[in-house]
């Protein structure tokens, strides 16, 4: 097995980023809903949204395999209707990243919406704006830092994803292999020094992500309350 470091890094970042971006709108909407609603169904949704965080990733992978396998209902539907194979392709890597990272995104987003005084939204309504307009002009900007933080956290988790990915996407070099899967394989092959090199690269990618996030989040804003 030869390692093409460049494409490995690009692929890993791409699938992690893709997975989180894919779930971002749903995560923000769900986080907002959970921060504001008192409905009865809330705790069920809450539990479902947390499940991937507490289950062993291999179990999550198994469930995903059950859903997206070529002979399973969802997998067959996607293949027959759109010609999309998911299991054991790069798409499965994206799906696995998205699912394991989702709870972290939702929890952080929810906390940042809960930090906003709901009366600010109420005042905006009295000034003539409908619920959606208030969400876009008041809630979203005020939660933007929290959403960014949730995004970074979810991205980091997706980047390090291993268990679910190997179950549903396998470890196919050049196709579904990410940095963490490659490290695992190298160690198994006894090529420890190469594994360490990849580990160092992974650390570097994570650091760059955090640095970028800090830069984006650094907005001049004075607080005196």
């Amino acid at each position, binding site marked *: 097995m030869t390692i093409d470091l460049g494409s490995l890094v690009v692929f890993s970042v791409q699938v992690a980023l893709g997975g989180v971006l894919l779930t971002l709108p749903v995560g923000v909407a769900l986080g907002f809903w959970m921060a504001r609603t008192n409905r009865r169904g809330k705790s069920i949704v809450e539990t479902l949204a947390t499940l991937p965080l507490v289950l062993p990733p291999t179990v999550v992978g198994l469930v995903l395999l059950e859903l997206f396998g070529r002979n399973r209902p969802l997998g067959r539907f996607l293949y027959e209707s759109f010609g999309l194979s998911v299991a054991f392709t790069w798409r499965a890597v994206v799906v696995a990243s998205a699912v394991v990272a989702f709870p972290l995104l939702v929890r952080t987003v929810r906390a940042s919406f809960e930090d906003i005084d709901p009366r600010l939204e109420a005042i905006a309504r*009295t000034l003539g704006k409908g619920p959606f307009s208030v969400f876009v002009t008041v809630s979203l900007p005020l939660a933007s830092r929290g959403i960014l933080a949730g995004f970074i956290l979810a991205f980091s988790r997706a980047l390090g994803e291993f268990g679910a990915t190997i179950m549903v996407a396998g470890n196919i070099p050049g196709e579904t292999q990410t940095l963490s899967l490659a490290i695992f394989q190298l160690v198994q092959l006894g090529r420890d020094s190469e594994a360490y090199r990849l580990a160092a690269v992974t650390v570097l990618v994570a650091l760059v992500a955090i640095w970028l996030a800090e830069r984006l989040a650094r907005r001049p804003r004075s607080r005196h309350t």
Partner: protein
Amino acid sequence: MIVVNVRLPLDAFELDVSLDLNEPVTALFGPSGAGKTSLLEAIAGLRRPAEGEIRIDDDVLFSSQQNISLPPERRGIGYVPQDSLLFPHMSVHRNLRYGVRGGDGSIPVDSVVEALEIGHVLERNPTTLSGGERQRVALGRALVSGPRLLLLDEPLAALDVGLKDRILPYLRRVREQYGIPALVVSHDVFEVLTLCDEAVILERGRVVGRGAPRAVLTGPGAGGELFRGRFENVLDVRVVAQEPEEGITRVETPGGLALAIPHRPDPEGTRALVGIFAEDILLARQNPAGLSARNVFAGTVESIDESGGVAMVCVATPEPVYVKLTHRAVAQLGLEARTPVHLIVKTHSIHRLG
């Protein structure tokens, strides 16, 4: 006419109010926790009453019978909460512009900025404003949305006396300039007397008194509100003459009560509010001679309220004036209704409020 007829269960009791408001500015007065803020929220559409009706003229905003409940954005009601609630992620200018609707009835931002004198803070972040500035911006933001009714929740609360002196004139100016009906929540006697045409007293969710502010606040339902804290007589005056060499400015109330107040170089005809604390006024049975005080005026005792720890004597001069005395002083002077008396006020006991 604004009709509010609602029943709304709260934590400790039920808000059960039936009111029709005809005066330009009505005060909602009462102890904290009486349900005043909840009532405002119900009118603004931020809380849904269990049943009842809320309408402005023939426009139904809420009716449990007709199953109508307009969302807040369609009620056209400007709400200024106690803590301002300016949007922290917008400049003052963007806060003001937030409610711009365009079309008829809206008030231009420039006009509001001028009336409230907030031009110098437009580019600032709301978190850097003083309490008084913040309240003015919140009031301005509500005005710009062109409301049919203004709800002000304790516009002067949480501000110290110094700031109070500065915000009241703006409320009066808004009242005169835009003529928007308003419901003002307050537990400040001074504020109610100065700003409002009618006062409604709310206690544990029910209306327990209603009428002209002066009458209501001294009436039985007020629960001794006059005795809480320092009571300040507030008089609306006009400058009639300047005597700088004497260090005084002569002013007169619409009723014809003439006062000498500390000099300030305003042109004749300038309107001002002056305050005299009830405990800063001396009361005498005879016309005193050889006094240094410049303000001595005759009147007759109208009423004496002895229900509190001190006695509050209302004296009819061209304007009713409240004097705070001990119960003992009332007895020694033999005061009762219609006793002729003289009031003595030092020039420097009269301070300008705006």
